[in-house]
């Protein structure tokens, strides 16, 4: 999940760090976002296949439809929240899952907007382009009374300053988890990750299916800005990962928390903090695992509820989003998925409700201060291609 929420930093990090962080991040993501949006817009204006979304969806008329189709990250909502929404003649939910923003976009673009999905959950950096190309509906805030429950710190992000298209779902960060019975020493950085992958954990490593996250391993380990679009740096990144990481890989796993941690499928896995927690909860021997918020930096991302421009069940979509913004529901969500859902005082409420492994859900100020928000820029096609080459090299 290539995502971002800078303002979290201002909440959690010391005041100075927060100011520095949010200026730095803010300027870069605005510039990057605008540049990418501009080029996409210009390019899509020419060419028959470069079509914007055509929306032929239904109007929101206040009557909740009998179905709702959600396209989201795998295992990303509490099952009891989903079943509660469907109970008592509520809409039937169809939830399909993806492992990267690119995959979600591909589905929408392939269908020229008429994908059939009502709600998608993109990471912040993808929202400007999706919005300006007509894939997302402008939200009617009056249909979301629980919007007021959100902590203002998380609203008005650089990618959607007025929350025209998006409602924060949750935010988190990326790291890795390792089996201490296989890797005896302590790992703390991405450089350690690469080193262990080639030594103790060789042949038992999984990485995410997200191009940004994968290239970030090398870039961060070498002190390079993970958002770089410098061709020389990306070439070096490709050369290193294809030659030195790919041969040691056992799998590409977006959700190690699903079953890989419980089954000890790998000894070393790149994964998101909430997902790691989910995996530890399902494991019979959680103590043998150690999760790392790696230095020097990692992604800080925010995923958002968005309604598609062609949504056929808009009222059900509003009803669902409003439901998950309700305080008790949000706590339930947090207790399951293990990501900060961004409501006011959610940390205290979740802790009171018996949250386990809170240190994974709410990283320390020190950790948050060093994170970098992912940005969509000119390097995007290159990093997508790099991931493809790593896959080929790993399989050869």
């Amino acid at each position, binding site marked *: 999940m290539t995502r971002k929420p800078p303002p979290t930093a201002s909440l959690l990090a010391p005041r100075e760090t927060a100011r520095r962080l949010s200026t730095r991040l803010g300027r870069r993501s605005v510039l990057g976002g605008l540049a990418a949006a501009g080029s996409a817009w210009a390019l899509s204006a020419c060419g028959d296949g470069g079509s914007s979304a055509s929306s032929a969806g239904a109007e929101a008329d206040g009557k909740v439809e009998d179905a709702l189709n959600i396209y989201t990250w*795998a295992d990303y909502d509490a099952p009891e929240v989903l079943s509660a929404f*469907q109970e008592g003649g509520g809409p039937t939910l169809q939830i399909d899952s993806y492992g990267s923003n690119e995959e979600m976009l591909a589905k929408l673009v392939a269908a020229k907007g008429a994908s059939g999905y009502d709600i998608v959950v993109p990471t912040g950096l993808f929202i400007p382009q999706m919005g300006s190309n007509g894939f997302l509906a402008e939200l009617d805030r009056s249909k979301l009374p629980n919007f007021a429950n959100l902590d203002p710190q998380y609203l008005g992000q650089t990618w959607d300053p007025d929350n025209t298209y998006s409602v924060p779902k949750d935010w988190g960060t990326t790291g890795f988890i390792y089996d201490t019975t296989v890797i005896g020493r302590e790992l703390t950085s991405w450089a350690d990750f690469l080193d262990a992958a080639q030594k103790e954990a060789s042949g038992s490593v999984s990485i995410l299916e997200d191009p940004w996250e994968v290239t970030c391993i090398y870039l961060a380990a070498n002190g390079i800005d993970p958002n770089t679009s410098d061709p020389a740096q990306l070439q070096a990144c490709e050369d290193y990962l294809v030659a030195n990481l790919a041969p040691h890989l056992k799998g590409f796993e977006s959700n190690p928390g699903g079953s890989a941690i419980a089954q000890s499928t790998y000894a070393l896995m790149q994964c998101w903090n909430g997902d790691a927690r989910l995996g530890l909860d399902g494991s019979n021997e959680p103590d043998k695992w150690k999760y790392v918020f790696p230095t020097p930096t990692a992604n800080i991302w925010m995923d958002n509820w968005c309604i598609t421009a062609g949504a056929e069940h808009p009222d059900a979509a509003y009803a669902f989003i409003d439901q998950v913004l309700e305080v008790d529901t949000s706590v339930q969500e947090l207790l399951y998925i293990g990501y900060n859902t961004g409501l006011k005082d959610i940390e205290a409420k979740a802790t009171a409700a018996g949250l386990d492994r809170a240190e994974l859900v709410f990283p320390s100020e020190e950790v948050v201060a060093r994170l970098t928000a992912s940005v969509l820029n000119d390097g995007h096609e290159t990093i997508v291609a790099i991931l493809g080459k790593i896959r080929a090299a790993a399989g050869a």
Partner: protein
Amino acid sequence: MTALDDRPGTRRAAPAPARRRRSTSSALLGIWGALVLVFLFLPIAVIVVYSFNTGRLLTSWQGFGFSSYAAGLDRPVIRGAIATSVKAAVGAALLSAVIGSLAGLALARRGGRWAGLLTLLLGLTLVTPEIVDAISLLGWFVSLDSDAGLPLFGNGLVRLVIAHSVLSTAVVTFIVRARVSGMDASLEEAAADLYATPWARFRDITLPLAAPGVLAGGLMAFTLSLDNTIVASFVQLPGGTPWPVYVLSALRAALRPEIAAVSTLMLVLTLVSLAVVALVLRRSGDSATDVARTLTGGG
């Protein structure tokens, strides 16, 4: 398809040493056969056993119970996926049975250049990699739907039925052709001499004779559709996800025992439909070999 097998009535007695060698080789072959059968059934047995797992994850055994069956059948999305699969399979079976049977009759009764070309085309549909069918149909459906303005092709079920029929029409055609080409054309000729209209001839003579082949082909198409994953995952639309695509998607997240439970039920369903075909074919007098040959499309 014809009963040409000249099986021996009695086996000639072989000299004693040869018999011993023969029994050794027979025993070895028998062991090999049993091993292959075990190999074929091992993972299915695993799935059936694990469908009674009461744990959260399919893969880690917690205890025996029926909770997964209850949970699987209770979830609207799973029920919806199975309903979509069955509807698409019935639709694909009907569509390809009609198109394929007619083509099979035509090919069996009429040779020539066009017949050869049609056979070639049908053969190509069978050997085209599924991923190629998948991407080409996706692009084609999207074009028909949004560029040509035919909303019919924006319907997920229509897409699935058509896509699966493309994959199975050839199977039906070849099964029916095999069936009909083994039959004598003189009955139809006699009917024609007796001034039966072409339609009456078709209805009263050709169709009843071809019926077992049509049925076998249709059920074959039904099962092929029920099993199809790659093409379905490309052309499907949300809200109309068929069962195999649901399983594929569930692979990404945690695998729950419900998957195994529902799969076991689907297996029983498929077994019943296969048994029905076999029974009908047996009734109509085919030997076991012919049944197998018909079921696999081998002329």
